[in-house]
């Protein structure tokens, strides 16, 4: 199990979802992925993408100071 980070700042949806999807494909089940976004649309899109594709949403955190959204998920089985 390993932890990974993805910088999706300044990308507008659906690009944060696409980058998350492409990154998750390269990881193993159980790995965690922390995605940093600035598009508020990611707050609904990445969790929806997790539900659809069998990944586990661990945390959605707002970094008010940076005006960023940090979403952490656990990669599921394909």
């Amino acid at each position: 199990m390993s932890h990974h980070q993805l910088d999706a700042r300044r990308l507008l949806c659906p690009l944060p979802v696409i980058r998350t999807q492409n990154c998750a494909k390269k990881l193993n089940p159980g790995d965690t992925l922390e995605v940093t976004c600035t598009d508020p649309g990611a707050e609904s899109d990445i969790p929806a993408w997790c539900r659809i594709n069998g990944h586990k949403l661990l945390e959605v955190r707002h970094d008010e100071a940076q005006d960023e959204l940090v979403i952490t998920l656990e990669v599921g089985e394909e």
Partner: protein
Amino acid sequence: MTKQRKAVALISGGLDSLLAAKAMLEQGIHVEGINFYTGFCVEGHTHAIRKKDKEKPKRNNALWSAEQLGIKLHIIDVIEEYKDVLINPKHGYGANMNPCLDCKCFMVSKAREWAEENGFDFIITGEVIGQRPMSQRRETMNIVSRESGAGDILVRPLCAKNLPATLPETEGWISREKMYDFNGRSRKPQMALATEFDFKEYAQPAGGCCFLTDESYSKKLVDLWDARSSREYEMDDIMLLKVGRHIRPKPHFKLIVGREDGENRFMDGYRKQFDNFTTVSCPGPLVLIDGEMQAEDVELAARLAARFSKDKNSDSVTVCLHRRDGTEQEFTVTPLRNEEIPEAWSI
């Protein structure tokens, strides 16, 4: 034991693709969705930029559709490959810069490639004969099947009864009788079917899901191409066409003026790539300069930038020009009056 057949459904996020996929699920087909991001999808850009857009639900309708259907969705970035579709459309453009028929051929072709790579048997779209003037006519249905290379593995469940039988039908994987004969622009049959499938809520796109069908956006795109004498574009170009007021006082440069805080914040990320003006003596928008100003253009640009500041009616406003090389220069200018700005400058 009968082999479980698999279909990939083009999911736009609209009602038709939702119903088409559902019709195949009802026939016991394993369906997964595919959605292509061209860079021009209305879905994508609009959430984060303008304040008025923030009030709309922040959801991606393709993801939402997939969730309603209980299927996986694969979102594919086709920004680079799509450039050739937009720049050289074999079948031409629609009312604006929308190459709808070429776009449909391209997307079905990409879905076919994906299906082959992933062991899927056929492709589903939500097309309906007569639904759209350019890309959904009987003759164009044949063109899409042929030019995409999908041929008889392309199934349009909503109007299948009006079309020749496809391979999944002749092979008995799906029943023709359980598909539909929708035809024309009326949405009533789709709404009735949505009720039958118990979909209580669905996206009702008005004016399409692509910026290229938008007249104002298309004008800005053509202006950009004309000014550069080239039809090449980058992602940043097409994003910035969606943002701000665009004013071209000279062929070799234009101003992109933030219209409100959300746009100013978004444009702020481009300040290292573009010379830009900010207002010093009063509140004002961020103004990006796309192109190269000559020395004699700077005062005109500064006066134009000042025109959009809070003190636009005063005799003097101080603005600061921030160059990409890091240098800064302040100018105190008289804002241009409305009557000094020819209509032709507005793109």
